[in-house]
């Protein structure tokens, strides 16, 4: 069976079926009218995933289709009450489809409107349906009086394409247009909403010769904006990704200030880093609690079924603590102190601010950053030499920090890096970082669970559950350690080192002349 392309037309004024005249036998099939509530996430995961989710009455429907034109229904689910996350849905097709698109993101209402539909069948002389017509009037209010747009979707039947073309031609003669905003787009515009791509890795418009201070400023500005955009989501507790992304933005800004040194006067750099540290610090515990609560199901499945209920107390405590912690964070974020810090930071990074001079401010950013990247890589290589299965956790932690710095540099300045040669290397770095992240998570979680155990003086069943969990996390950590050794070997082997050398090591003359820094042997 072939998928047939339907023709979507936007109708001028109140034209409808009557404009087709008597030449056609139009048989009304059905008509209905319903209020539709459309859902999407902060990142517009569904919109950009070319899907639409709406609720009509007590039914949620997930449709394909893009650019604000809901297409055919992929799956639907009858539901009382609200659904916020993919796991709140009960039916398997809905859960599977949404899980991939939403991840940890919550659904929020993005638009609401009334859809009055009339479906007609167009029949030929033999009484055979040759195409179907779906007339829709979209209104902004529940009563359907504030009409925003009228549409007609012509749905062809295979083998009757000529008839469809003639209907489209006739409607076009009456003023119908095939280009324009779809129903959801119209409702979004009415609500002054515009789907926009969201990324934590925006382009900064840099080139090799951009002066270093200007380049760092161009990185800091958009990332600070991103951090601020995430604050309402934390305050409203929409989902955990807002805090996650907010913290990443703060960390990235802090990193770029220390990785590209001396672009601002020393005192200003110190103050910016201090502000960023203060802003992040008061959210540490809330993030930790989010991580534990998100891992609730995973933790439970690590234990045998009999022991699983023993973790309920732990998660009840974490849930209660999270509520308190959220109240504290929200109050801080809303408070004058945060406002003042953000204002000061934005003043400090403002391109119009008159900074006094600093050592690297006017140097071209390319050579400066390449030197820094190569230096980080060499440091990781050096640190990795001592890594064995019995290496203390701290040494691995140190490599994790260095890898993070290297990754940030590669991300910030990705526009300066020739893509093809580094693509494979970046894959290796990502793989290594995943392993290091797993190792760190297992280590931090053991520590935290043991602290909880001591604090609560857990004994009996809950002590047994916690003990079991800590043991499993320890075993997992040991297993990951072996994988880290392998991943490090890959990342530090001669071919990767060669790629770094070819890409980032500057000729002695360029390095000395352009950066004024010492040549790297």
């Amino acid at each position, binding site marked *: 069976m072939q998928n047939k392309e339907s023709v979507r037309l936007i109708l001028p004024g109140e034209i409808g079926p009557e404009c087709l005249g008597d030449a056609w036998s139009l048989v009304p099939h059905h008509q209905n009218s319903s209020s539709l509530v459309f859902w999407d996430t902060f990142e517009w995961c569904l919109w950009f995933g070319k899907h639409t989710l709406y609720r009509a009455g007590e039914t949620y429907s997930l449709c394909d289709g893009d650019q604000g034109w809901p297409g055919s229904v992929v799956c639907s689910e009858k539901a009382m009450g609200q659904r916020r996350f993919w796991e709140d849905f009960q039916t398997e097709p809905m859960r599977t489809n949404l899980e991939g698109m939403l991840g940890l993101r919550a659904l929020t209402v993005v638009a609401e409107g009334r859809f009055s539909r009339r479906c007609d*069948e167009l029949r030929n002389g*033999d*009484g*055979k349906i040759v195409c179907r017509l779906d007339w829709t009037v979209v209104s902004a209010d529940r009563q359907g009086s504030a009409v925003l747009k009228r549409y007609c979707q012509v749905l062809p*039947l*295979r*083998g*009757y394409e000529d008839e469809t073309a003639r209907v489209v031609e006739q409607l076009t003669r009456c003023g119908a247009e095939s280009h324009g905003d779809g129903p959801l787009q119209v409702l979004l515009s009415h609500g002054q909403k515009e789907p926009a791509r969201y990324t934590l890795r925006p382009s900064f418009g840099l080139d090799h010769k951009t002066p270093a201070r200007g380049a760092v400023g161009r990185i800091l500005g958009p990332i600070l904006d991103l951090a601020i955009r995430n604050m309402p989501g934390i305050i409203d507790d929409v989902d955990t990704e807002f805090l996650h992304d907010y913290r990443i933005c703060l960390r990235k800004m802090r990193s770029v200030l220390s990785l590209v040194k001396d672009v601002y006067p020393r005192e200003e750099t110190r103050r910016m880093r201090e502000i960023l540290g203060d802003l992040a610090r008061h959210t540490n515990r809330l993030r930790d609690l989010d991580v534990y609560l998100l891992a609730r199901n995973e933790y439970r499945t690590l234990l045998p079924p009999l022991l699983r209920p023993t973790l309920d107390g732990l998660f009840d405590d974490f849930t209660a603590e999270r509520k308190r912690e959220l109240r504290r964070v929200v109050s801080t974020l809303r408070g004058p102190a945060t406002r003042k810090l953000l204002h000061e930071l934005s003043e400090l990074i403002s391109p119009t601010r008159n900074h006094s001079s600093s050592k690297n401010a006017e140097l071209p950013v390319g050579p400066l950053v390449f030197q820094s990247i190569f230096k980080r890589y060499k440091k990781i290589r050096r640190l990795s030499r001592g890594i064995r299965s019995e290496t203390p956790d701290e040494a691995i932690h140190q490599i994790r920090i260095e890898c993070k710095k290297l990754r940030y540099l590669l991300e910030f300045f990705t526009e300066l890096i020739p893509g093809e040669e580094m693509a494979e290397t970046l894959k290796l770095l990502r793989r290594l970082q995943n392993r290091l992240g797993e190792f760190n998570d297992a280590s931090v979680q053991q520590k935290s669970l043991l602290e909880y155990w001591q604090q609560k003086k857990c004994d009996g069943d809950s002590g047994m559950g916690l003990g079991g969990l800590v043991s499993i996390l320890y075993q997992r950590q040991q297993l990951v350690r072996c994988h880290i050794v392998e991943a490090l070997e890959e990342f530090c082997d001669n071919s990767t080192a060669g790629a770094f050398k070819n890409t980032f090591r500057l000729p002695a003359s360029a390095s000395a002349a352009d950066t004024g820094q010492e040549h790297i042997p």
Partner: protein
Amino acid sequence: MKIISSYSIKGGVGKTALAVNLAFAFRDAGYRTLLIDLDPQGAASFYFRIGSAEKFKMKDTKSVIDGLRRNIRESDFSGLDIIPSSLGYRHFDIQLDAMAKSRKQLRKVLEKFTPDYDVILMDCPPNITLLSENIFRASDAILVPIIPTVLSRRTFEQLLGFFRDEELPCDIIRPFFSMVQKRNKMHRELMAELPPLYPGFLKTTIPFSADVEKMGIHKMPLLAYSRAGEAARAYRALCDEILSSGCSEND
């Protein structure tokens, strides 16, 4: 993809009614279905209000595939497409005869429709020709409606004889009783006598029904306008039996 034929040497046994309603039932069960009306009388096409197929050249496999594809018509019931009948099919035998491996060409043609359909159902003309032999070699199952009468039994045995002579696999032949009148003593006797003799006999029987005859007035499959009647239920049961018996499954 499963290829199923509705076939009988004898006419007027409910062959087309079977093809039309079975196609509808498969589509209702969620199978993407293509019904090919190979009978030049075009009754199956008529029941779907579809006119004759456009003429196309049949000089080789490729031209036949292109021609059939061009003639696919979507029925009023989504999930069910039809290739309507054409008087041109009466020349099929001559065209097939001119091709190499003339007895296996149809299978080759139908395999090209594999990605688009789960089931292909063929309403076949009531005769034994080179086209019929192609149909036998292309089908995973051949459904043979038998009115419980002496003449129907005779033609069924003729069909079995042909299969044996041509060394075709007899196990793909799936006979069933059609247009059954339970009050008719001869019907009852033959219905008791035949199934033990032929292991492939399907259990479901299709009753004689005025509802089926009314398909000509409604110009649509019985299952589309009368779901609760005895004959409608029988067609649905036959579809279920075919699906569960595995006779519609690929090797």
